[in-house]
């Protein structure tokens, strides 16, 4: 299930970085603020999805594997 998920950086992390840089450079435009609402919603959805997946993962019963991963 986790392997099927898209691998990407959470959009809030990218926007936060961008806003921090712009703030430090002197300021930002209204368009940047407009984007925050969309990005925050998207980001929170993603966080909730991950949390749900973790909760589901914790409920899985333990089952023995035929292969012992390296390091164990």
């Amino acid at each position, binding site marked *: 299930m986790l392997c099927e998920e898209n691998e990407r950086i959470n959009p*809030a992390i990218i926007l936060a970085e961008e806003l921090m840089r712009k703030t430090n450079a*002197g300021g*930002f435009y209204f368009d940047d603020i407009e984007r925050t609402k969309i990005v925050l919603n998207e980001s929170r959805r993603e966080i909730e999805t991950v949390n749900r997946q973790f909760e589901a993962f914790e409920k899985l019963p333990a089952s023995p594997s035929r292969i012992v991963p390296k390091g164990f």
Partner: protein
Amino acid sequence: MSALLGKPALNSAFFYGSDKNLNFGERLTRATDYLEFKTRIGNAAKACETIERIVSESRKFELYKKYFPEKWKNSRASFSRRGFYFNYSERANEFFTLVNEHLFPLFDGWNEDEETDFEEFSIFSLNIDFCCTEIEYEYISLAYSAGLLLFTNNEEIWEFFEQKYNVRRKNLPEINDSAHKNLWRDKRTASSDPLLNLLEIIDHTTGNPWFDTSGCCEYGETYRWDERTINLLSDSFREAKRMLDEMDEMDVLIKNDPEKWLKRLIVFWNEGVLPDE
């Protein structure tokens, strides 16, 4: 988000001052702020918090510029360093101080704590709450005590007026259990208005948040930072001060002739009309 910040001008931008104009200390603070942010940037939830903080501070800076443009121009307060209220920058702290000094009392009551979160703030009532407060009549306005007498016919208040102001109860009419029905129906006049204001203050029904908000056992309504709220709280605070001044004037009149004024108030309460002077 547009509603949050008001309709933007075409070239609307949140510029706080370019790097070139900043002194070394401010540049250093911004740099460490950025580095501190970089150490926790891998966490999406923390990134959301950072965005919210930047947007929230920007909104306050816009309001600062709007309400105090001259102060903004001359301000040297940092945009990065944390101020006394350490959830906010020095510049946002400066804005709060200006609001507190020039518009309405923001720092009163529970808002004195340096950990206060002002995102959704409460105001501290100028009124007296009766639920848990034991009222000491000596320390409250005389007019307020007189008005309270009408609502409660309380023996303690009678004693207070008898002992302190030599009022003889037998010289005054009995107080009806409830106010005359015309009291709030008739048109207000210059002489009835202060008395009605007094009764409404005691009853917490002025329509003014500075009097009607309860500040005793629970937080009252909360407010957010936008122009509508600032205007509402500033205008209503000015009006509240006017009403308190009116009460001070009434205090002087009552002090000079307590029996006459208590009688006037009781007749007004019982009959809904003011007796002739």
